């Protein structure tokens, strides 16, 4: 008896009990579609984080005041006496580090913005004129402020799209007056729309002013928490990181055994960390979905065991009229493989449909992964073989005389 015929026999046996076959497959269908959907969500999140980071620029470095980690205790970069980063430090970095092309401080001041009878609370960020270039974030209308305006601490401001929409609905904000902390500013530009970041925060809810202006007129302090530094290329980021570290240690007069009182991080590390996080999340989601696939497999084994008992007489008949034990074993094994692989196929379709529907309904980005599809097909076939083997062996071990007498 050829394998093809055994496969046909197995198919016929399954067709004879359609309802049961469908219910048995359901476990695998749910399992496979869950794995595919979960991995798609994970991969989608990972891809969007990756895209985000690439849009920021992989040659970007952060310099922040205060050490991130002192003797195992994280001090963070809060307001607790971290006066270590100055404008002079940044000027020195720009001047003396050859691998650095651009520098901008980043000073934040939360304040109420008033335009006419509208007002809006947002964070006004003080930066240098190089900010759009460093962050790869262009201005949509108007222009960014100039080097001269930074030096003179001019009261000019560039707003994000959310502000433009809320403070100047239906009118052009360029050239309009706006009050920041009760000081009149002039709107010179509107940033391009950026949308939400992966955490769902609105990135267009911002305003930019010269850092000098923010320091002197809004905050009244000349401290710098964070600065963005652009290296000349992505390859130069590690060189830049160590050169900045050396320079700042020298400027801060730190001796060899004193820890850094600042932190320099580069975007590549951040990207890797983010990647690691989303990879962990993907694996976690896949594992949870994998459990349901396993449960589906146990469902197959359960049904196949019941089926062997229920069909004892059938097995006896088949053996009496000349089926070898191996033919009976193969038949039952193939039945369970057919169940699991058919379930797997339906699961793939359902999983892909789900993955494509999730962005529309939940707004999460997804990315259908070929690996997840191939993996779940192989896994469901393995489930069929693994969980089908025991019942099949049980069927093949039956004695035809006893099996025929079975009621």
């Amino acid at each position: 008896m050829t394998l093809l015929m055994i496969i046909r026999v197995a198919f016929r046996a399954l067709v004879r009990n359609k309802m049961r076959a469908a219910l048995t497959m359901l476990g695998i269908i749910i399992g496979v579609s869950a794995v595919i959907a979960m991995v798609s969500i994970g991969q989608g999140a990972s891809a969007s984080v990756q895209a985000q980071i690439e849009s920021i620029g992989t040659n970007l470095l952060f310099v922040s005041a205060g050490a991130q980690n002192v003797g195992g205790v994280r001090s963070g970069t809060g307001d607790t006496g971290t006066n270590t980063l100055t404008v002079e430090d940044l000027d020195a970095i720009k001047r003396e580090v050859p691998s650095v092309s651009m520098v901008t401080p980043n000073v934040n001041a939360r304040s109420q913005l008033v335009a006419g009878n509208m007002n809006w609370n947002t964070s006004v960020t003080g930066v240098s004129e190089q900010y759009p270039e460093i962050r790869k974030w262009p201005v949509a209308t108007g222009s960014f402020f100039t080097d001269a305006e930074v030096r003179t601490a001019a009261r000019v401001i560039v707003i994000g799209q959310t502000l433009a929409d809320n403070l100047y609905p239906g009118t052009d904000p360029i050239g309009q007056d706006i009050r920041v902390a009760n000081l009149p500013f002039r709107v010179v530009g509107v940033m391009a729309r950026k949308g939400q970041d992966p955490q769902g925060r609105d990135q267009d809810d911002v305003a930019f002013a010269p850092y000098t202006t923010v320091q002197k007129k809004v905050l009244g302090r000349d401290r710098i928490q964070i600065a963005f530094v652009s290296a000349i290329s992505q390859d130069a980021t590690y060189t830049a990181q160590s050169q900045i570290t050396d320079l700042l240690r020298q400027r801060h007069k730190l001796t060899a055994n004193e820890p850094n009182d600042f932190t320099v991080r580069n975007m590549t590390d951040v990207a890797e960390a983010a990647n690691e996080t989303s990879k962990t999340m993907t694996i976690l989601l896949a594992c949870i979905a994998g459990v349901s696939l396993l449960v589906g497999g146990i469902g197959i084994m359960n049904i196949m065991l019941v089926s062997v008992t229920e069909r004892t007489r059938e097995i006896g008949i088949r053996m009496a009229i000349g089926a070898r034990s191996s033919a009976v074993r193969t038949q039952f094994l193939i039945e369970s493989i057919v169940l699991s692989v058919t379930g797997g196929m339906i699961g793939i379709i359902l999983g892909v449909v789900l993955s494509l529907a999730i962005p529309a309904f939940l707004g999460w980005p997804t990315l259908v992964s070929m690996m997840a599809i191939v993996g779940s097909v192989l896994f469901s076939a393995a489930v069929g073989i693994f969980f089908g083997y025991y019942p099949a062996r049980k069927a093949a071990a039956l004695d035809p005389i006893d099996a025929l007498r079975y009621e």
Partner: protein
Amino acid sequence: MSTTFAVEPQELQPGVALAMPVPEAQPVIQLDHIHKIYTMGDVEVHALRGVSLTIRPGEFVAIMGASGSGKSTTMNILGCLDRPTRGTYILDGEDVSQMSKDERADIRCQKIGFVFQGFNLLSRTSALENVELPMLYLGVDSAQRHARAMEALAAVGLAGREQNHPNQLSGGQQQRVAVARSLVNHPALILADEPTGNLDSRTSVEVMEIFQRLNRERGITLVLVTHEHDIAEYADRIIVFKDGKIKSDHAVENPRNAAEELKNLPVISDDDDDEE
């Protein structure tokens, strides 16, 4: 008993192999001092105590005996479902007494057709597919399977009922499907285990008529196990078992003629046992 099978060659259906009843042909069944001992826990049950038996091609033999006489054990050994503990069994020229499980499965497939008391058809499966089943295990290609199954069903008077499932057939019809199934691989031997046990008297005669016809027209060797005397009398030879041994083995002087009896039997209209 070599005279009983010296029948005139009849007109034969094409494509059906025939065991030609030649007087000096080798026996289909040759049992030589068969013993069967079952071990149940500490107890040894001596089911067969030296059974020797020869059945020649074209014979129609009935095996009788009370329960516990050893007739079922003999049946299992004859059907290669079980192996004798001692002794040799030569089936159609081949010693099958010490064959492995798989070898016996192949022998059953090629040389033996079974008809059981409980019909033992696959449920939710058409009559045609049930009849095709033994050929599936023999590896017959699908076109030939179909043709041979159709022919076998026609031979038992079930033409037109090929697509019916067992639950759409009466007991007599189901048993005829089982007979058709036992025929399709052209076995050397058909074993019928209480084939009329679940049937009423008229249907029993109908099934016996098919057996007699197959035996007389096609020369098929038939071994019938029954405990009913009147059923055994359709056979040409009756072997009676008692306590694991053959008690008697004699030819039937005037076997009953099922075809003749059917003509005189009134058609009972309680069931649709007869095909239209």
